[in-house]
């Protein structure tokens, strides 16, 4: 295709917004806060799966922890009537993500799976995406973090080890999604089936508070979970159109 015809083709195709609604998959997660016990197993699973470095005490004290999913704790009321609430917070994979527009080098953009990507080797470290993100789920590598031997032996070969000056965040375990798609192709199946693939956090959650799947499939577990009347999205008023749904905790 010549350059000019590619330009014309692109012009016709992309002039209007909304083309992105026809995603092949629309990966979505629901978090049932009623089931979440705040055990933080998801954080550990994520750390192990995605080669997230342990930054050490000092760095955590300076507020430079790296954790693609965190469990936020909120206290309601005063002691002794205080109630504790948990809210696992990870990248919300917004369809109208504020972080994407600001990246000057397109290191973060929206892909055809409805995912908010982060390309480590394209990132130049302006950190603007972290500022623009209202959920504060983008983490920056302030240093080159190492792994004490023999811990480097447990690194996941399917995930890039990030160096200094690079932004990183939850990918919904893109390496697992890719693997599932690969296997689906081998079997001449056209689509990944529901439940065939789970991110590390979902797989680990002991209470099954996290559910993951394709929103485009109306029968999938996540679609059913999304339609729960308790379902809401965090900071929905900002119109980020996020892909993580939370199911409200119901007080007994």
């Amino acid at each position: 295709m010549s350059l000019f015809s590619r330009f014309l083709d692109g012009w016709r195709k992309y002039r209007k917004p909304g083309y992105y609604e026809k995603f092949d998959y629309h990966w979505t997660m629901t978090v049932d806060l009623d089931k979440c016990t705040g055990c933080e197993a998801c954080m550990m699973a994520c750390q192990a799966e995605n080669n997230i470095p342990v930054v050490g005490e000092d760095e955590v004290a300076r507020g430079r922890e790296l954790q693609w999913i965190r469990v936020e704790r909120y206290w309601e009321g005063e002691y002794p009537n205080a109630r504790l609430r948990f809210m696992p917070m990870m990248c919300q994979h917004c369809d109208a993500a504020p972080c994407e527009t600001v990246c000057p080098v397109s290191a973060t953009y929206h892909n055809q799976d409805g995912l908010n990507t982060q390309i480590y080797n394209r990132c130049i470290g302006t950190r603007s995406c972290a500022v623009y993100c209202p959920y504060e789920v983008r983490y920056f590598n302030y240093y080159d973090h190492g792994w004490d031997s023999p811990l480097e032996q447990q690194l996941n070969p399917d995930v890039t080890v990030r160096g200094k000056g690079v932004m990183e965040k939850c990918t919904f375990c893109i390496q697992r999604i890719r693997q599932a798609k690969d296997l689906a192709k081998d079997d001449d199946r056209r689509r990944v089936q529901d439940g065939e693939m789970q991110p590390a956090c979902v797989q680990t959650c002991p209470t099954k508070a996290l559910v993951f799947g394709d929103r485009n499939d109306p029968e999938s577990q996540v679609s059913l979970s999304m339609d729960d009347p308790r379902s809401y999205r965090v900071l929905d008023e900002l119109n980020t159109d996020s892909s993580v749904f939370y199911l409200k905790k119901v007080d007994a």
Partner: protein
Amino acid sequence: MTNNVVGLFHDPESALTAAGELKGAGFESLEIMSPVPIHGVEKVLGKKKSVIKNFTFTGALIGGMSGFALAAGTAVLYPHPVGGRPIITMPPFLIISYELTILFGILATVLGFIVSSRLPAFRNRVYVPEAAVDKFVVTAPCDDAEHYQRAKAILNAAGAEQVRKIRGDDL
């Protein structure tokens, strides 16, 4: 190689008078060199038109269009859907096009200046260093001695402090 007659004046008015008289006497391609721009040159030596504005306008126009083409063209070459916006997003692309309008406008203005003022000088040109300090200088090419005497007389009559002859082979 033409010789030149040069008259140094110490105020712009007499230099202008002298230039007017030289022109009246049939001398052509007169030049007035001065340390500051003189007002009223146009009345004596005729109106000047510069092509710079055409350069600026064309440059700005090309800049605006190429700015938009750059932003929109590169966006469709490797489409990266971003923040739910269309690939060809008008408001930001117009900003890029605005900046490039100005950039190309500036560069074209410089080009126009260089073209229309015939700078830089690659060939030797008549010059009097005092003109950069505080003298107003009238120069005119003159071919022979008779012309020179006539010009000298006119210049002196207009109140020249000094009249010099700059020979062609000096240039």
